[in-house]
């Protein structure tokens, strides 16, 4: 049922490498590995977790004492902007950003221009990824034709063409009948359906005839002070409740994207307790920022779902810790500068995240003692499982995909530019503690941080 991340499309597909990483603190919570070891890689697989300083190899040897090694991360929710908005991102730059963030795989959403809704679209993207992608990239197709929310796409044919899953992300599936049909059809097609949960009747307070008057931030004390139209938490949680009920009724499975509110956490808890097959994700920005940031009216803090209140943030952290929220996903959403250099209400929604995700969570949650490092490391790769991909592992015999992390490094995101083509990060200008030094996918080094690469040479 599950397959390896490296079987997705990327430049390095099919060629496994040899490598030894010596002396690092190796942490793989799922495999119960936590200690100083040498990691020996041959033919793209982990062959041995050896005592520190003992291993040698035919290939490159990386001396990594004082550094940390984790299973490489997996992001089930990114926007690579291909086709249609290559000025913001493309497969090459987006996967380079992923490599720099420690990822061994990303899943690209289908709300492109035009949307990915035909087998030919999927095949074309896969071919480009095979030429351009630094790390394995999977592609989702839309649930509804043209992203219009009316008719199903040819899900079976899309699946055969290699669509990893289905999603109308960016938009909710407002029509409950269409949602139900997609869940029924899943019994034929198999792949998971990822849901952007938002009731537009609640999130667009002026009504459907005026989508441009839609909510632009969390509805709460800050929106009341600023006079900005709010998106209430219940716009999200009520839709999750509907879809959890439909999934239960159809014995189907769903993946809920970017949880943002305490109410949503409660709905997911009730669904999981009732045995519904539901997984969900949370973004780094929802875990470390709140709607207080919006007081500056800085458009970098505009995204959908919006940053919510401190109480929501605490609920998300607790749910991630307990495993109620399965994984971290960035919702990496690049935007051109001119889409953000406008007043807050007119700005595009979305923030980049691939290059900063782990460092942000390490700095803001792990170092202050809010979240265990082992828990975070698990959640950074667990999202693969929701789409039938094996989460990376450091167990001998597993595909050798790992992150080499320097927990001591201090850096300022964006100070040396970005791998991504866009720079709409919430975190540019902040000080982060800990930085990805290198990323390995199936034994191949797909990223080296510049200073670290020089140190090796």
């Amino acid at each position, binding site marked *: 049922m599950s397959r390896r991340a490296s079987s997705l499309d990327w430049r390095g597909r099919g060629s496994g490498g040899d490598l030894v990483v010596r002396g690092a603190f190796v942490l793989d919570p799922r495999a119960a590995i936590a200690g100083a070891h040498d990691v020996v890689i041959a033919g793209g697989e982990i062959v041995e977790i050896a005592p520190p300083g003992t291993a040698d190899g035919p290939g490159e040897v990386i001396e990594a004492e004082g550094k940390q090694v984790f299973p490489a991360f997996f992001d089930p929710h990114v926007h690579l902007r291909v086709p249609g908005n290559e000025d913001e991102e493309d497969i090459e730059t987006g996967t380079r950003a992923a490599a720099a963030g420690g990822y061994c795989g990303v899943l690209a959403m289908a709300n492109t221009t035009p949307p990915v809704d035909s087998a030919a679209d999927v095949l074309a993207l896969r071919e480009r990824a095979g030429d351009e992608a630094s790390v394995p990239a999977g592609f989702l197709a839309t649930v509804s034709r043209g992203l219009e929310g009316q008719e199903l796409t040819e899900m079976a044919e899309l699946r055969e063409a290699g669509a990893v899953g289905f999603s109308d992300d960016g938009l909710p599936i407002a029509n409950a009948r269409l949602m139900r049909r997609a869940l029924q059809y899943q019994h034929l097609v198999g792949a998971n359906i990822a849901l952007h949960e938002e009731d537009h009747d609640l999130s667009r307070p002026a009504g459907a005839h005026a989508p441009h008057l839609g909510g632009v931030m969390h509805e709460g004390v800050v929106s*009341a*002070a600023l*006079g*900005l139209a709010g998106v209430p938490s219940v716009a999200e949680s009520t839709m999750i409740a509907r879809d959890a009920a439909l999934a239960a009724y159809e014995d189907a499975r769903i993946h809920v994207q970017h949880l943002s509110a305490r109410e949503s956490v409660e709905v997911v808890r009730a669904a999981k307790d009732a045995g519904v097959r539901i997984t969900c994700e949370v973004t780094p920005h929802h875990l470390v920022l709140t709607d207080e940031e919006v007081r500056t009216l800085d458009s970098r803090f505009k995204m959908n779902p919006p940053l919510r209140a401190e109480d929501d943030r605490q609920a998300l952290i607790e749910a991630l810790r307990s495993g109620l929220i399965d994984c971290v996903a960035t919702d990496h959403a690049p935007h051109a500068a001119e889409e953000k250099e406008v*007043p*807050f209400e007119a700005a595009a929604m979305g923030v980049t995240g691939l290059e900063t995700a782990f460092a942000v969570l390490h700095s803001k949650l792990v170092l202050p003692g809010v979240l265990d490092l082992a828990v975070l490391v698990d959640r950074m790769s667990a999202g693969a499982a929701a789409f039938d991909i094996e989460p990376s592992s450091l167990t001998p015999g597993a595909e050798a995909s790992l992150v080499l992390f320097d927990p001591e490094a201090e850096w300022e995101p964006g100070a040396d530019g970005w791998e991504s083509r866009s720079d709409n990060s919430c975190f540019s200008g902040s000080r982060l503690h800990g930085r990805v030094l290198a990323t390995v996918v199936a034994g191949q080094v797909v990223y080296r941080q510049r200073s670290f690469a020089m140190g090796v040479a």
Partner: protein
Amino acid sequence: MRHLLAIGNLERADIERIMERAEGFAEVGRRDIKKVPTLRGRTIVNLFYESSTRTSSSFELAAKRLSADVVSVKSAGSAVDKGESLKDTIATLGAYGPEAIVIRSPHAGAADLVARWSDAAVVNAGDGKHEHPSQALLDVYTLRRRLGALEGRRIWIVGDVLHSRVARSNILAFRMMGAEVTVCGPPTLIPRGIERALGCAVSYELDDLEQADVVYALRMQRERMGESFVPSIREYATKYQIDSRRLSPRQLVMHPGPVNRGIELSGEVIDGPNSLVAEQVESGLVVRMAILYELLTGGRPRPGDRSGDADGVTDPTPIKEPA
């Protein structure tokens, strides 16, 4: 003060200073020649992205009474209308070297962005539903002339608070001057959390209106019906219209204009003895002169400019030739 972007950025001392300055300019307005040379040679750009009659004309006249050169740009028919971004428009207008930009925008925070992108002093003449600070200052000025200090006065702001930048600026300004503010309107038009956000009380009915010293009615837009905020304008008027039966002689009535007669205010109240509506418009001119003066002279005269010093303002030399 470098810019006037939001009441939220001001200290009470800033407001006091502008009030005193406005009183000086009120005297100028009673002269035959109502013009002083204070800002001669300075350029002020009025950039209005929304239709506006009283705010734009009031700022324009204020600038002219101070002898500044004024360029007014309205969005309709301009480059703005042709899709030019705000940033590009500001860069273009920057070529004229304006000392001040007065901007009205449908978007919150637009004035802050202009302040970031331009060297000019920036006046927020209304940004989305966020703030309208010059309106709040002229309302404080109007009330102080009538009531003296606002300490302990009870002010009710009635109507569509959700969509009102005037409400937000006025709540902050009235409270800063020591008044107690209650907002009143249908629950659908009172933003959730406004008590904590802005420090006011909330009422959904006019039953306790008698406790108000001042009743500040807001404009009710007909579109709100189509957006199902209120079931009908008729019901709204029944529940929230300020008419003479609801008012006692000591209560003052204000409105930022333009008024929908027979909706938020009855005709006899607008024209009646309780109404400060006409005085508000008069105050608007002198308060906006005071704002421009404050920002462009830093509250102090320019070196070598006798007409702009403190005495000059309370007793400025009128320009001899007809304006």
